[in-house]
């Protein structure tokens, strides 16, 4: 056993996986070796045809074999119909033991990913999170090899470091031409930004674009260029538009969530960084959408405009752009139909490569220039460590997403959550799964007050700013006691020794592992 700098006990080796323990948010140096890619140069001549008659033909043409790695993006969210179709074809071809490496596992049904795990088509998963039926199956020990969970920023790092080499990338696109130029911005199943697909397109051994909307050559607008694409397939449908556009919560009426959102914006507005040209991201949960609304109100009152808004973008941010409150919207993902169409129709709403959004090991990274990042959480502990993966019974509830990246990049990272959910405390002594290191969290905002993290790099500044206000400051220990006084102390979740999931930090070190839950 080894112990990382956050006190988590980790095995030295998990199967073939050598554990490098997390030692701090910025301790791993940049890679000096050249970027690893499986992309080949290719050679196309006039008259070449990339369009394949069926998915089966495209999979055969890709040379996919047992044990290889396949990837998908999750921009169609719960409305995705690409993953199920592709896996079904792969199963029909008898290809087994694949490493399934989507940008995130969406909770699709009929067929479910679990079916392909059970029949051996998939034997490894590397993604941002697993939940629903698949999450239950993994924690119940149905997969022999542990799932590797990576943040949105850690995935492109792992690909370029050669830790996750993609053999075949399947890229669903809401419009594509027969030579592979494609986009998510137009068409009946528009999903907006295809930010997660760039790194796959640039580095996979073979790239197959799948669309239900084959458009005249050349496709315009274009997100992924023909030069990266090997084959194109037209299918009947790639998604359910109602579910694709259901990524963002509506403005909540829950008074508790509204109160937390208002306090979050009070905190932002009290900061010296809330000034002309500031930057932010608020996300898409219920509290986040309400925070966006309150932030817009406060910007109007104070006459402050933002230079850019970042990340997963809902309609509320597009409204701010239209009103002139935000100069540029950098979309790594579009959460609803309004945001999806905005990239095509507004010059300052841009589709960005997810690697340029969140990868700490590139020469860019918008997060490094972000002032405020608002994050959700399932649990926070008294060291400000955050759990965004597992629920009160140890079940898989969500994905890492970009949360740890935002916390690591933004100058002021704010976690918003209620003190208790139902009969479960949200502020605990020790989170069940550690996903985001506490040292990267500046503040926790709850209905019972705001806790500032004395170990955060901008603590002094934030404390000075908030002491000028009447905002209620409370220690994280007081919040934890309050939560515990209301709910009692939950019985610890009992686990076996077997590791079901490895949680990697942005730099590829292991921040925690999730062990199988005892039945």
């Amino acid at each position, binding site marked *: 056993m080894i112990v990382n700098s956050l006190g988590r006990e980790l095995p030295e080796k998990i199967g073939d996986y050598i554990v490098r323990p997390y030692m701090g948010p910025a301790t791993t140096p940049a890679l000096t070796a050249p970027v690893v890619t499986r992309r080949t140069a290719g050679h196309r001549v006039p008259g070449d045809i990339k369009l394949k008659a069926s998915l089966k033909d495209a999979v055969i043409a890709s040379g996919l074999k047992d044990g290889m790695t396949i990837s998908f993006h999750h921009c169609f969210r719960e409305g995705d119909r690409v993953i199920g179709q592709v896996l079904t074809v792969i199963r029909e071809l008898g290809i087994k033991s694949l490493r399934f490496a989507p940008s995130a596992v969406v909770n699709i049904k009929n067929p479910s990913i679990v079916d392909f795990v059970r029949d051996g088509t998939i034997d490894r998963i590397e993604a941002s999170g697993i939940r629903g039926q698949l999450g239950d199956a993994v924690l119940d020990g149905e997969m022999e090899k542990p799932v590797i969970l990576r943040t949105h920023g850690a995935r492109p790092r792992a690909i370029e470091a050669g830790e996750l080499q993609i053999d075949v990338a399947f890229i669903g696109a809401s419009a594509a031409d027969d030579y592979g130029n494609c986009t998510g911005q137009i068409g009946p199943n528009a999903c907006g930004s295809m930010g997660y697909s760039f790194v796959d397109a640039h580095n996979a051994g073979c790239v197959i674009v799948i669309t239900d909307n084959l458009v005249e050559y050349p496709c315009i607008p274009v997100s992924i260029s023909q030069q990266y694409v090997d084959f194109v397939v037209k299918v009947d449908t790639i998604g359910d538009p109602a579910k694709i556009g259901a990524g963002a919560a509506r403005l909540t009426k829950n008074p*508790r969530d509204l*109160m937390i959102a208002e306090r979050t914006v009070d905190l932002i507005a009290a900061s010296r960084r809330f000034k002309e040209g500031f930057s932010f991201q608020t996300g898409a949960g219920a509290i986040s959408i309400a925070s966006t609304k309150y932030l817009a109100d406060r910007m109007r009152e104070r006459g402050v405009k933002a230079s850019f808004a970042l990340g997963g973008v809902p309609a509320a941010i597009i409204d701010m752009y239209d009103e002139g409150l935000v100069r540029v919207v950098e979309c790594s993902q579009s959460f609803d139909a309004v945001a999806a169409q905005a990239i095509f129709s507004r010059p300052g709403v841009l589709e960005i490569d997810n690697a340029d959004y969140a990868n700490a090991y590139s020469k860019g990274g918008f997060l490094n220039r972000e002032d405020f990042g608002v994050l959700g959480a399932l649990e926070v502990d008294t060291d400000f460590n955050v759990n965004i993966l597992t629920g009160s019974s140890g079940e898989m509830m969500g994905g890492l997403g970009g949360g740890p990246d935002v916390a690591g990049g933004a100058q002021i990272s704010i976690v918003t959550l209620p003190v208790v959910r139902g009969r479960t405390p949200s502020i605990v002594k020790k989170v069940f799964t550690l996903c985001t290191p506490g040292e990267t969290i500046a503040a926790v905002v709850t209905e019972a007050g705001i806790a500032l993290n004395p170990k955060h790099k901008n603590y002094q500044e934030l404390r000075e700013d908030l002491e000028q206000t009447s905002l209620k400051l409370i220690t994280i220990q007081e919040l934890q006691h309050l939560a515990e006084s*209301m709910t009692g102390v939950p019985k610890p979740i009992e686990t076996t020794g077997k590791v079901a999931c490895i949680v990697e930090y942005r730099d590829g070190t292991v921040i925690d592992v999730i062990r199988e839950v005892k039945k």
Partner: protein
Amino acid sequence: MAKSELMRTSLYAGGTSPIKMIQAGFYNEDCLVYDLEDSVSAGEKDAARFLVYNAVKYQRPENKYILIRVNGIYSEYLDEDLEAAVRAQPDAIRIPKVEYAEEVKRIDKRMTEIERKAGLPVGQIQIWCNIESYQGVLNAREIATASPRVAAMALGAEDFTASMTAQRTKPGWEIFYARNAVLMACREAGISAQDAVFSDINDSEGLQTDLQMTRTLGFDGKTCVHPRQIDTVNACFTPSQKEIRNAQRVLEALEEAAKNHTGVCTLDGGMVDKPMELRARCTLAKAEAAGIKMGGQTK
């Protein structure tokens, strides 16, 4: 017992929902009312009583004025409600549908008996009377002074209009007299006057209009039917910076006049009289109670 001087807002939390009861403690209401009456069905009265007792006794939110609303004076539940409520030691017990001073006296007596039996300090728990019928309005003066425990009266507009066979409307002219009658009785007794609820939680403009009447008449607070109304109602009863500054100027002018032994005090060309001084002191007291920072205030 932590008591707030402010009674701008009171919020009901149903006695059968632990989550709502816990959550209610985090909103900005000055007074939190744990309810055993209307929000609790007949089959759940025992459970609610037990839950509310424990919530008040062991999970009491800090810095709030805590009330328990018991069931009606003639209901079969009242005795057990009082037994539990008094032992839980809230700041006040809220009595629904009070119509006669005698009813308050009876409850006061019963509360005293329970306090003695339980070895609790006698008379510390206050009473809020809900005035919800024409009979209650007509007897408001006697009710307000029926017991030294009576700390507030609150108008219940829905039941009142029903007792009058009147229509309940948003402009509220049908309760205009009742509002004034209750308010004057409160002023005479020196207790807090609480206005009727505004029931449409989705009509924020309607609430603002209703609050203009509430504040203009002189009420001290208002019951909220939903947490969303709290901040709006609190703001209505909290003096604005302009009002605070004006009040400070009035007191500064009076101080200056006293220093100079001037018989008549003037401000901006007008005379400062006793009512102006009273209003100014009242404004500053409200601002202070609301925790507003005031610079250069005259004491």
